[in-house]
């Protein structure tokens, strides 16, 4: 899907970029929960399961897994952070 107002922008960082070969992706995730999105993505890229943790951020915040995604929300894959 191309970038459009009818989609969600999904960002990949660190090792998730290497695993998926993607840095950005546009999908319509409207109405899906964070948990469902994560499950579907992991089915497509099983290597994501190997990470010790994988958080999903929504609009620059850590959110609970049962949160429902709205159109326009920015999603990001947050593998274990290692700043500092």
């Amino acid at each position, binding site marked *: 899907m191309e970038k459009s107002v009818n989609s969600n922008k999904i960002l990949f960082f660190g090792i998730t970029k290497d695993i998926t070969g993607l840095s950005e992706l546009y999908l319509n995730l409207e109405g899906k929960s964070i948990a469902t999105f994560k499950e579907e993505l992991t089915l497509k890229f099983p290597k994501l399961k190997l990470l010790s943790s994988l958080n999903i951020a929504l609009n620059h915040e850590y959110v609970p897994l049962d949160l429902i995604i709205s159109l326009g929300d920015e999603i990001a894959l947050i593998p*274990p952070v290692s700043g500092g």
Partner: protein
Amino acid sequence: MKNLVQLVDSIDLDSVISFVSNTSCGAVSIFLGTVRSHTKEKAVKKLLFEGYAPMAIKQMELIIAESNELYGIEKMAIQHVLGEKYVGEQVVAIAASAPHRQNAMDACTFAIDTLKKRVPIWKKEFFDDGAIWVSSHP
């Protein structure tokens, strides 16, 4: 409370310290992180820091708000680099000022501990025989 939160190419420690220094405060605590030459006895060639900039800024601002709530600091500044860094270079600087030193020091400890847990920045270590994303590699 005023704060300074920046993602930078190079740490400017003077600006971090100047920002928090204040004549109503007798104490400034500073934490400075640098690139180590070795990780588990393997020689490090360089590091690459990647960040999710808008979220990283938001999370660092949150850390300052929480530091203030917990320790009653006067001012805090956090600078973190993005990009390539070599052995000995500075990668993160945190400074906190407070009327009393224990608060400034506790706030600084809390801030770096929390930054390492929560701020979306990732470090790739380059060795002679390859590279890994720290903490992430399966």
